């Protein structure tokens, strides 16, 4: 099913949970709503599920207005973070619930219900646990029961709120792969909420990054990671060094480091911020290349990569390098090295400080690549 949310606003008291959010989701797509807590991602999901109604704006399902349609008439499968399994019902009864509550005219026969439930349970690999109660299941099993229950009504869209949030790391990874496979098989439109960037990048076709009730960026996992549109996305996804800089006529000055910033050719002088990923920082011996001098402060070896903390003037900078390069340079605390960013992006300070992003599009446009 195609979903179209238009200019959705929602406030709780004085707190603006969603501030003019628009989002299109294509048929069969798996979309992640990614953001910190309070970013409005769960509210948006609940509005799509009919558990919350927007103050203004509309939600269209396949082009038809669904804004005022109650949850029970939407035919959406909703999976809660803590699964919300009915404790007093067996696994079988939980999964068959959505079929059993249908009016007599629409309700499948008992045999048909049993057949469908067992089919679903075998799909989620729980067929032999049909008579168990939720309290007798592990976290991962509960999660799969919740999914089977949501799928039993043959929903037009599957909505998942932090689907893996309550699971431990190992189970989470397994279920992630499993959900991805399930989605590829069923081709069902899916939206899930997460605050875990790895989860979003791993499972979703498209990622919607949200912050303070607004959408910061929509794009494929690679786009989101490689070309963050705003300082927020930069900082939220992956490690990044945020370095204060001064922008003058198409050049950015970070301490003694001067980098070209052609998009700001028209700016005569303004405070800005440069964003550099640790693995984009190239380290070399002093005098062997370009860049600013910095002093190695601390070195941490993390398997194949090495994290190096450097002092560039007063500024702490984090760099990541390979094990090989590390031994070539023979890095040690107190040693001087030369720093050169392979890639950096600049944002004008005025535009992004505080909570407002008045000229967000402009900022995105004017951000420059090296």
């Amino acid at each position, binding site marked *: 099913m195609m979903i179209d949310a238009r200019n959705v606003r929602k406030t*709780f008291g004085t707190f603006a949970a969603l501030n003019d959010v628009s989002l299109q989701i294509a048929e069969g797509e798996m979309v992640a709503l990614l953001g910190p807590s309070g970013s409005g991602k769960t509210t948006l999901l*609940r509005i799509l599920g009919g558990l*919350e109604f927007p103050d203004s704006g509309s939600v269209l399902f396949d082009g038809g207005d669904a804004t005022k349609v109650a*949850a029970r008439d939407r035919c959406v499968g909703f999976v809660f973070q803590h699964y919300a399994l009915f404790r007093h019902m067996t696994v079988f009864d939980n999964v068959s619930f959505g079929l059993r509550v249908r009016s007599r005219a629409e309700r499948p026969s008992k045999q048909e219900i049993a057949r469908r439930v067992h089919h679903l349970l075998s799909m989620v690999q729980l067929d032999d646990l049909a008579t168990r109660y939720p309290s007798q299941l592990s976290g991962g099993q509960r999660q799969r029961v919740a999914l089977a229950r949501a799928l039993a009504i043959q929903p037009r869209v599957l909505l998942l709120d932090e689907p893996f949030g309550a699971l431990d790391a190992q189970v989470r990874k397994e279920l992630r792969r499993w959900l991805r496979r399930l989605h590829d098989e069923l081709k069902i439109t899916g939206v899930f909420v997460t605050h875990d960037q790895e989860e979003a990048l791993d499972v979703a076709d498209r990622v919607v990054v949200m912050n303070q009730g607004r959408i910061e960026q929509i794009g494929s996992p690679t786009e989101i990671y490689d070309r963050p549109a705003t300082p927020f996305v930069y900082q939220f996804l992956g490690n990044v060094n945020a370095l204060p800089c001064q922008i003058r006529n198409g050049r950015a000055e970070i301490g003694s480091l001067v980098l070209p910033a052609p998009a700001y050719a028209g700016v005569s002088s303004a405070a800005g911020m440069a964003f550099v990923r640790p693995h984009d920082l190239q380290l070399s011996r002093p005098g062997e290349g370009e860049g600013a001098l910095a002093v190695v402060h601390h070195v941490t070896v993390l398997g194949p990569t090495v994290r190096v903390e450097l002092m560039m003037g007063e500024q702490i900078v984090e760099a990541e390098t390979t094990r090989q390069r590390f031994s070539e340079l023979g890095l040690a605390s107190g040693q001087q090295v030369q720093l050169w960013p392979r890639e950096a992006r600049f944002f004008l300070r005025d535009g992004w400080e505080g909570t407002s992003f008045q000229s967000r599009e402009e900022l995105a446009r004017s951000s420059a690549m090296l």
Partner: protein
Amino acid sequence: MALAISSSTTSLPRRSVTEPAWVRLLLIVSALGVLALFLLLPLVTVFGEAFSKGLDAYFGALGDDDAVAAIGLTLTVAAIAVPLNVIFGVVGAWCLAKFDFRGKSLLITLIDIPFSVSPVISGLVYVLLFGLQGWFGPWLKLHDIKLIFAVPGIVLATVFVTFPFVARELIPLMEAQGTEEEEAAVVLGAGGWRIFWHVTLPNIKWGVFYGVLLCNARAMGEFGAVSVVSGHIRGLTNTMPLHVEILYNEYNYMAAFAVASLLAMLALVTLAVKSLLEWRFSREIAAGTRHQKT
């Protein structure tokens, strides 16, 4: 008797799945109707009847010698019974909440017994022990000691029915607070009394007060148990509830309700202070109110 599982609903959760407005209205109206009919109306009736013949008659009824004697006796009985049960409550809670031992849960169940015994039976057991035909009856008679149909019997029966109030408030509260602070005090060299006065008591003082409040309300209002052991001697062994009964049975309704109105006011004050405590010190008494079941 389960007293007061606190229900501090300060704010309702936002809910999108709820009943249609007309259903909600219907339910609210019916629930308030039930409360008004069964709870509010009796309360209003007490005061209505009490003041039905004017203020002079009201105060006249309260100023009656027998009424004054009944008020005096009720206060006396409460003044003896409540402190006895407070001491037991604190001592018992110390023992049951700060230590682990075999048979602990049995002991807690035994402490609760008076709540499940009919008040009439609570009185009866003392008559069987100390009455003229009771086990100790002849011996007491020989030594000219009168317990039943006298004030000591009334105190005993009152102590029985109010026995668990303070203890069952304090046990879950002190259990929830754990023993760390006391252990810290021991390590710092404090003795038992010092620990109790300076460490434990400050933590449980509102719980004690809460227990005293409920214990006192029951002590002053107890009817069945006291009725059995009192002998109903006007001016001597009549507590306020018993005096209400006598006046009522003599068809002196106004006077009966006048005395009853004092007890109703006690109930209202108790409820008000209790709500205030639950609201103001919910954390300090929460453990107790949350776990009261029987």
